[in-house]
Each structure stands twice: as structure tokens, then as C-alpha cells.
């Protein structure tokens, strides 16, 4: 069966891979965060990078619940954490509606509160791209939405 992880380049070696399935409910976000944080530590990410992964994964899972499933309790989120030679790969799968990132408008980064568009909407996807080194969305009818995000370890000299 295809793992849908084409973004992992052939030269990146996977050290460990763990998968857990969580109910698509906001109450579960803290547990998902804990799972991903453990893997980020195993991957040797620093505190700043770990926080970036926590935020990106939280935003991704909130989007899955809100948009792919259209609410809480409609399906699961399968989360795979792969510790690799150079960092962490997080793969999130859901069976909700196909997600097309190109349909999400850019957020208004709020020059002023008087601006009607200044609501904080659209920030989730923007954060994911800002915080992670790679973000890929793939939808296939068989495996549903597969989101792959990569955070590489800073190479201190």
C-alpha cells in the first residue's frame, strides 16, 4: 500500500516512525500536541523549532476538523511522526472533504483594526507555511487528504 509520502527524499533516512489515530475533536488537540512534541524532541529539534511544530500541527488539525470534516466528531485524524536523519516529518491524514490550499485566501496581516478584513481568518495555513520547511497537500480518493510537513534540525556549526 502506498504510504503517500513522496516528499521524503530518497536520501533522508527514517530512524523511527510512530502513528496514532485521534478523534477529530478540539479536545484532542492537546494530546496530538503531546505526541508530536515527543517526536520533535527525539528528532533533536530545539525549543523554538518544537514550538513551531506544535503550532503548525495544531493549525493543521483545527483546519481538518473545521473544514475537511465540517465540525467536531465526524472523523479521525491519523498522525504519523517520522524522526529522520535531518529532523521531523509529520503526516496527517483525514477522510474529510478534499482540501485545496489554493482556495484559501491570503490572511490580512492587520495593518489596522478598522479594516473589516482584520479578523485573524486564514492565519492557520499561513502559519504552517511560515513555521515549517515543507508543507505538501495531496488528496486521493483512496487515502483522503494527506498533509506532509517537514521541520529540519538547525545545523549548528
Amino acid at each position, binding site marked *: 500500500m502506498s504510504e503517500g509520502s513522496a516528499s521524503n527524499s530518497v536520501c533522508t533516512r527514517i530512524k523511527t516512525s510512530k502513528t496514532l489515530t485521534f478523534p477529530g475533536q*478540539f479536545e484532542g488537540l492537546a494530546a496530538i500536541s503531546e505526541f508530536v512534541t515527543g517526536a520533535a524532541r527525539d528528532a533533536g529539534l530545539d525549543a523554538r523549532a518544537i514550538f513551531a511544530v*506544535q503550532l503548525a500541527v*495544531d493549525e493543521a488539525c483545527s483546519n481538518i476538523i473545521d473544514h475537511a470534516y465540517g465540525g467536531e466528531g465526524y472523523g479521525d485524524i491519523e498522525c504519523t511522526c517520522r524522526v529522520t536523519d535531518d529532523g521531523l516529518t509529520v503526516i496527517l491524514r483525514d477522510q474529510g472533504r478534499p482540501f485545496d490550499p489554493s482556495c484559501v485566501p491570503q490572511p490580512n496581516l*492587520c495593518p489596522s*483594526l478598522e479594516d473589516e478584513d482584520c*479578523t*485573524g481568518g486564514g492565519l492557520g495555513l499561513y*502559519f504552517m507555511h*511560515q513555521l515549517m520547511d515543507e508543507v505538501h497537500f495531496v488528496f486521493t480518493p483512496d487515502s483522503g487528504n494527506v498533509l506532509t510537513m517537514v521541520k529540519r534540525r538547525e545545523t549548528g556549526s
Partner: protein
Amino acid sequence: MEVAANQLKRCDLVKATGRIDSATAPRLAEVFAEIHEEGRFRIVFDMNGVEFISSAGLRVLISAQKTCKRWNRGELVLAGVPQKIYDVLDLAGFVPLFKFFDTDVEAVGSF
């Protein structure tokens, strides 16, 4: 997230600790709404104990700030914001929309 609100003489002091995410942000919104419903719009939000905030939490802060500042009737100011929480506000471009104070005492004194 734990959240507590105290009505002071010149403003309300709201303190939160823990995670402000999609699960807990609605509770924070309720706390701000309860203060607004009683006609008070000068609020200090002490974030010293906040460990995590997502865009769901940021949306609550923006919405509360808009309500507070309408007709110049008040303001939501932030106190004790940890660096990593500040970084999230900065990433969203929200830093210019709030006054920041190191401690809740200084923030309360600003009203």
C-alpha cells in the same frame, strides 16, 4: 486553559494559564463577552501563564480588542506576554494592535 477574571476599580484583569487553542478559545471569548455585556471595556489580559496560543486564540484577542476600542470606550492591553507567545502575535502581524506591559501591575496602572 484556566481563566479567571477580576473587576478592579479602573479596569478588569483577566488571567489565563495553559493552552489557548480551538478547544479553549471559546471559553476565553465568553469571559471577554461577559465583561463587555456589563458595559466595561478596559481590560488587562495577563498572559504570563499562557504556554500556547493558536490562530483561534488570536482571533479572540482581535475580536475583543475591536469591541473594546469601539467609540474610544476602552482598550484591551496585554501583560506578561512570554516571548514565544509574542512571536506568534508578531507572525500574525498583530503586535501593532496591542499595548504590551511587562507586568499586570504596570498594565493596570496604565488605565
